[in-house]
Each structure stands twice: as structure tokens, then as C-alpha cells.
């Protein structure tokens, strides 16, 4: 168990370093004079030179890469070219919003997807199952920004059930989280369904039935826990695609989260901020996978002894 986690940790670190490397080259190829981004387009030559010196812009790329990694080793993600704010600080300020939004959304869609997946698996191939299948496919075909706009207009503005935007309290996150949940619930309902179907066909579920266990007991005590194991893996992996969805939803609902920060920094060519957000989300994904690994051992006793 420990060796496995350590191996995973080692590979995660390698992956993250690779990601840092990748993003560094990616964003450093961005056209346009960075110094002008920093100082404004009308800055004098003197000021531009100072900035070149300050940010080591004239150094060879490899030297800058070296600097960047040394910085990273100190936990420093650099400063924004546009606002001079520390990237780490910007991320720290914005992370709670994204975390709360995501957390709320995960709760919502898991609460919806699990019963749907279980019921469709139980009543496999019924009209109910087929309907939910189509609804689920629709759900994963919705463009997040579009759905967010439509719901914002209709539920928040027209009907006034929710605040239109911004983040002042948890109430403000209800609609954005529900939007995100709607986008994800289809996928997860199907995932639970697929795993549940497999588990319901398994001998131990038959054995549980043969014992005289009630249907509810069979579904929830015997089948669900087994069916959720792959779902939890997927949840961990999905943090990445989730950040993609969050990005648009934060944008539409004017939520000050990581996604919005990323969009802003790309539009502003704010290189350190782009790298910061990319690296941060990569870390988040790797971290989430790691947590899933830990959870796995707890949920599935077979893993623990498997060394």
C-alpha cells in the first residue's frame, strides 16, 4: 500500500514537472512584447528596459526556465505582468470560490446521478431507462456557457429565483452549481448505470438475493458500494474536465474563481498568471487522483493487500 502510494507520488511529481516544462515553453512562445504588456503600450524605452531587466526577459530561454524552476522550488509562482499581484496570492484568493462551486455541484450531481443510475440499472431497458439515457446524452451535449446563459436569464432574471451573478454568499452559488451539476449528471448517471448493471449481474448480488435480502438492501448495501468504486476514480480524473466547465460558468455568473482568472490572463497575455493557473489545475488533478487512490484503499479492501 505504502509503496504503491509512494510510486504514485513519484510519478505525480514527474508529471507535474513535465507539465511545468510544457506550459513554460507554450506560453513563452506567445507573440507580443511582454514588457509592453507589463508597462502599458506607451511606456518609455527606459521603463521597458527596466522591465526587461526585472523579469529577465532578455535572458536565453533555458536560463529563464532555470529561474522559473528555482522559483517553483521555493513555492513562488511569480507575479502577474498586468497587476503585479503575486500569482500564488491571486490563486489563493480565488480558489475558495471555485472549490465551493465545484463542491456544491459535485454534491448536487452525485445526489442526482446515483439514484438515477441505480434505478435505470434496476429497470434496465424499460422506457424509464431509455428516457434517462436520452436525457443523459442531452445533458452531456450541452455547451456549458450556453446553458449557463439560458438558466441565468430564465431562472435568475425572469423568475427571480436566484441571484443573477457574483459571489457574496453560498446562495449565489446555487444556480451556477446547479448548472454545472446538470452538465455532469448525465455522464455520471450513465457511469453509475453501467457499473451497476455489471454489479447486479454478479454472483454476489445473486447470493445476496438468495439470502432473502430485500431489493433495497441488495441495491444499496451490496451493489452500490461496488458500483461506486469506478465512479470515484472517474470523479478524481474528472477534476480536470470539471475545471474546463467551471471556467465558462464562472465567466457567465461573474464568479471570481480560478476559471475566470485563467480566461482573464489568457486574454491579457499575462504569462505568469497563465502558467500559474495551468500548473495549479494540474496539481489539483494530480492531487485529486492521489486522494482517490487513498479513498480506493478504504472503499475497496482488495486494493489494500495488493501491495
Amino acid at each position, binding site marked *: 500500500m505504502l509503496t504503491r502510494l509512494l510510486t504514485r507520488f513519484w510519478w505525480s511529481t514527474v508529471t507535474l514537472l513535465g507539465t511545468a516544462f510544457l506550459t513554460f515553453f507554450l506560453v513563452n512562445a506567445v507573440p507580443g512584447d511582454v514588457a509592453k504588456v507589463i508597462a502599458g503600450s506607451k511606456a518609455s524605452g527606459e521603463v521597458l528596459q527596466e522591465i526587461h531587466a526585472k523579469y529577465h526577459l532578455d535572458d536565453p530561454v533555458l536560463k529563464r526556465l532555470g529561474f522559473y524552476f528555482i522559483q517553483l522550488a521555493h513555492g513562488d509562482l511569480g507575479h502577474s505582468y498586468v497587476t503585479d499581484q503575486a500569482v500564488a496570492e491571486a490563486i489563493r484568493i480565488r480558489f475558495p470560490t471555485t472549490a465551493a462551486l465545484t463542491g456544491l455541484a459535485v454534491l448536487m450531481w452525485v445526489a442526482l446521478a446515483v439514484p438515477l443510475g441505480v434505478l435505470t440499472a434496476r429497470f434496465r431497458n424499460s422506457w424509464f431507462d431509455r428516457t434517462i439515457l436520452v436525457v443523459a446524452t442531452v445533458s452531456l451535449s450541452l455547451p456549458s456557457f450556453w446553458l449557463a446563459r439560458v438558466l441565468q436569464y430564465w431562472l435568475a432574471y425572469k423568475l427571480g429565483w436566484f441571484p443573477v451573478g457574483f459571489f457574496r454568499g453560498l446562495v449565489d452559488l446555487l444556480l451556477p452549481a446547479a448548472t454545472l451539476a446538470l452538465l455532469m449528471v448525465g*455522464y455520471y448517471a450513465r457511469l453509475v448505470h453501467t457499473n451497476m448493471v455489471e454489479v447486479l449481474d454478479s454472483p454476489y448480488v445473486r447470493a445476496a438475493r438468495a439470502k432473502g435480502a430485500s431489493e433495497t438492501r441488495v441495491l444499496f448495501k451490496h451493489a452500490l458500494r461496488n458500483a461506486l468504486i469506478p465512479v470515484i476514480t472517474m470523479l478524481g480524473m474528472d477534476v480536470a474536465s470539471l475545471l*474546463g466547465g467551471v471556467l465558462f460558468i464562472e465567466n457567465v455568473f461573474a464568479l471570481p474563481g480560478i476559471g475566470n482568472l485563467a480566461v482573464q490572463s489568457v486574454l491579457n497575455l499575462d504569462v505568469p498568471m497563465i502558467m500559474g493557473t*495551468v500548473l495549479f489545475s*494540474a496539481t489539483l488533478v494530480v492531487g485529486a487522483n492521489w486522494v482517490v487512490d487513498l479513498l480506493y484503499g478504504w472503499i475497496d479492501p482488495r486494493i489494500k493487500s495488493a501491495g
Partner: protein
Amino acid sequence: MSPNSGFFKASLRIICANRLAATGALIILLFALLALAAPTLLRLHLLGDPNQLNLNGLDQDGMPRSPGQGYWLGSDNLGRDVLSRVIYGARVSLLVGVASMLTATLIGVTVGLLSGFYGGKLDLVLMRFTEMNLTIPSILLAMAFTSLIGDNGRVIHLHPAALPWHFLDITLKRGMLSVFLVIGFVSWPGMARIVRAQVLGVKEREFVQAARALGASHWRLIWRHLLPNILPTVIVLAAMTTANTILLEAGLGYLGIGVPPPAPDWGTMITEGQPYFATAPHLVIVPGAAIVLTVLAFNLLGQGLQELMGPRQKP
């Protein structure tokens, strides 16, 4: 009967066997036909010019007209025919979507095959690289990529130069080429992983072992034995990947870093239309519905094919 028509018949039979797949295929076919026919429809004046500003398209307040008032799906903020723009938008979305899917499939299948077939160090390196790509949300990666690629313009003639089939002309306006490459480059890792897993399974089967024992070359093993066996999976994945690439393309358009105007791109149409939501909701609803329908069609096709072909991947 040529072998080709046999293949098509077979595909048709397969697709019709599943109602989901059939629905999906039908919608895609419809959009594809409309997209291909758009220039002809335009020449026959059955469709307005998607890029032509038209003062008649605006009401007395200078606002877009709602659906019905002389325009089936209304007009946009510049008085352009929304129906025409949506149909022309299908050209962009389908072309970019399918082209990115092909790019992603090419990379994904190659990486997956090599990784799974050769294993060892190559596998380790390729899979690490895949994982790195997976750790960054694809939209974020695409955003970073987009700011990288400069403007290249290119016209693609899908017909021999000698033939005047101009309906097959597709102009890759500035950005379109880069957009599909970007989307292709960020969409392959998932595919690579699944292909690799499949290859690992097929590789151990008797007939591959037998072929290997008979001294078949690596190329022959991959081409004649592995590829045909993973093809069903790849086809299902390709359909679902197309759904995602179209969504991604719309997303980039929405952020203003996709295919540039005046190309009627669905995502861009939503961005341009959303300030009008309170006044002319059709400017957001219509292109959005087009995206949903197309993406849904590809997802249904993928879902249906998966049910038909049996191997269970992700739903």
C-alpha cells in the same frame, strides 16, 4: 457490386439496427447536407447571404428581428439572416469538429498503438506524456495554444481542379486551420489511453501470438492484426470525440479566440448574441440549439454504436 457499396450497405445496416445510432446519423447527415448545399442555396436565393449586412433585417430601433418576420429564424444584430448563419456555421463546426477529431484520432491511435504494442520504456514515456496532457483541462490548453499560433490562411478544394464543383470549396479562413489543429492537439490523450488498453488485450490473443510466431513483421502485426481489432472501439471513440471537439470549438469561439468573424461560427454567434438575450433571445437560443443538436447527434451515434459493438467503455 463494388466492394465499397457493400461496405456502405453494411454500415447502413449496422446503423439502422440501433435507434439511437440511426437518429444521430440522420441528424448529422441533415446538417452535413445543409452545410454542403449552403452555397448552392445561396446562389438560388433560397438562403440569405450569411455575411451581408441588411438594414431590412433590423427593426425601427435598430434591433434584430424575431423569428418569423421575414426571417425564419430571425435576424441578428447586423440584420443578417440567422438561419443562413446557422447553416453556414454548420460548415465551420462540422469541418473543424471532424478535422480535429481526425487529428486527435491520428495522434491518439498512433500513441496508443505504439505504447501498447512496444511497451517498456516507450510505453512509459508516451503514457507520462499523455498523462501530462490529461492533467491540464483541454479548454485551458487550447486557450494557451490558440494564443500561440499565428494567422495562416488556406483554401481547400475538396474536388479535382479540373472539375467546377465549387460547392466542395471550403475556405479555411484565417484561424480555422489553427483552431482545428489546436483542438486536435488537446483532444487525443483520452483516446490514446483507451487504444493502449485495447491493444494490450488484443496483443495477448492467440491469433496475434500465432502471427508473431510465424515471424510477421511489427508493421504487419499492427496493421493486419491489431488495428482491425481495435477499429470498433476507435469508431465509437471517434464519434464521441467529435462531439467533444465541436463543443470545444464552440467554447473557443465563445471566448473570442476561435474562428474569427465574419465566419458564422456557432460559439461566436452566441457571444455576439448574448448581449441581446433580453431583447432577442433567438440570437443565443438558435446557435445554442444547433450546437446541442449536432453534439447530441454525435453522442447518440457513439452511444448507439457502442451498444451495437458491445465493448463497454465509458458511457
